[in-house]
């Protein structure tokens, strides 16, 4: 059996759940939440993250900051599946008695920080990484950041800080889906060569296909074992709107929604 069969099965399930969430809350950023599913699945089901759903803030846990809050909706079903909150909560997204907003924050069990205002996650993670070292903790801190989010200047203050302070317990994952709100990043500011930028800042860098479990697992496992005084950047090349025709790769996909009947049709196809 394929070593990553379980992760593939989970991904299919998360994608279905994400579509149902989007149907209930059309304000959710579906395209942004489709590019990072395999990253979430690898972290939580692939044995990368240490977590304890029963004690969400247990001191041994790895800290995971979803800095690109817009793409955090696909983490909701995973957190429910792992027991951070009841699965019934998923059906209440956006309702008056729900803690599930379309941009996640600390009201949701399992989320470390307030997210969605872009460019904050890495700096906060730097402080956590310093704190963990001070406590002589083995825990690590992971951050998921969008490529468009890298336009925020504060990110680069964190990039400099992490390298200077040798925060090798910090893993910065860039969901490099190429598209921000008004189109392709290459037509906005252009980030390439992104790996060279991180290397120039004295980071350890690996680039992977962000939809490929073998590559994600390999890179994240290497990072876990490499205490070489360098913070780690994982550039995960992904497709915004991954797998949904008309959405995938569309320059305006960030603001596009799927209509209810379209979602029903896609779900039928998945089931078939």
């Amino acid at each position, binding site marked *: 059996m394929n070593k990553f069969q379980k992760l593939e099965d989970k991904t299919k399930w998360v994608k279905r759940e994400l579509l149902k969430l989007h149907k209930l809350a059309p304000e959710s950023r579906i395209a942004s939440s489709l590019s990072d599913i395999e990253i979430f699945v690898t972290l939580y089901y692939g044995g990368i993250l240490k977590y304890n759903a029963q004690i969400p803030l247990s001191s041994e846990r790895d800290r995971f900051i979803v800095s690109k809050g817009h793409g955090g909706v696909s983490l909701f079903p995973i957190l429910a599946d792992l027991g951070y909150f009841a699965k019934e909560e998923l059906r209440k997204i956006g309702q008056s008695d729900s803690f599930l907003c379309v941009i996640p924050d600390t009201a949701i069990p399992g989320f470390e920080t*307030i997210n969605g205002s872009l460019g904050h996650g890495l*700096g*906060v993670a730097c402080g*956590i*990484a*310093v*704190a963990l070292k*001070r406590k002589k903790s083995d825990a690590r801190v992971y951050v998921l950041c969008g490529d468009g989010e890298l336009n925020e200047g504060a990110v680069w*203050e964190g990039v400099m*800080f992490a390298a200077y302070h040798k925060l090798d317990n910090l893993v910065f994952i860039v969901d490099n889906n190429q598209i921000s709100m008004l189109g392709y990043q290459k037509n906005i500011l252009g980030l390439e060569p992104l790996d060279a930028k991180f290397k120039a800042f004295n980071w350890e860098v690996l680039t992977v296909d962000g939809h490929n479990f073998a590559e994600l697992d390999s890179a994240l496992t290497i990072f876990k074992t490499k205490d070489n005084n360098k913070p780690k950047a994982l550039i995960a090349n992904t497709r915004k709107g991954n797998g949904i025709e008309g959405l995938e790769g569309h320059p305006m996909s960030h603001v596009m929604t799927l209509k209810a009947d379209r979602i029903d049709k896609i779900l039928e196809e998945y089931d078939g």
Partner: protein
Amino acid sequence: MAETKIIKTMRDAIIEKIYDQMHCNDRIFFLSADFGAPALDKVRDDFPERFINVGIAEQNLVNVACGLGLEGFIVYAYAITGFLSMRAYEQIRVNLALSCQHRPINVNLVGVGAGVSYDVAGPTHHCLEDISIMRTLPNIVTCSPCDWVTADRFVDFSINHNMPKYIRLDGKPLPNVYSHDCIINWQKGFNSLYKGSDICIVSTGYMTHRSQEIVHEFCEHGENIGLIDVFNLAPDAEALAAEIGRYKKVVTIEEGFKNRGGLDSLILQLINEKRLNVKFANIGFDSRYIFKSGGREVIYQAAGLSKKDMIEVITKSWD
């Protein structure tokens, strides 16, 4: 016998106290945005593992402070106050004000250069907006001491109150207003320095020194006016209303823009809420920036805030 006044900077007083506390409390971190003080050298030398210079990067200063705070450390984040409160405003909003509503964070933003204390540096280094904008944020305690004694006492308060705080310090050495062994009641947030008959000044920060001079001038002319020093911008409303309610006229004096949400707004709101039968006037900077060198007095002259101007406002017809 009257206690000898000691002239000292608030920053040295606060850092000396933090330094003392760092000896017995290993949960304290001191972060600086490449900003110093004579007293800071000892912190850097003796606690290299808990002193971090984040560089000229106020946004990251607040972010890193938040991360340490989330992990249970007590953090002092130190910078020039205009840059701390305004360059990093959204970091303060998201990572301190918002975050602490779900997870406790003891981050203390310590800013130097309140008002026009960086007088000759010009308007980029003046800070006339911070009280107003920090007061707007829920969950942030905003403190504005008038002397080094109050600044010193902030440290015990900050360690024992597990929430984000902002304290704005004057940049200049100033004599103590409060006695050396004074207990500062942070929950009450204000102190009545002089009791008067009809008129009362309410001031904060450096303006409490200037207000003292004004009180003395009135006293020389046989008139007793009151003076209330507000050092926590969320004072005990009941207690302050009771104090203000004793007077017929109240005038606020602050080194900030007036009618923009600062001390004047706080007092006016209190008068309205408690339906106090007092007349009100406010003294502060008009809504324009001052491009003037030559020192604090020159700036005050240019802004219509000379002592003579202030006395005129206080003695004018209040009807």
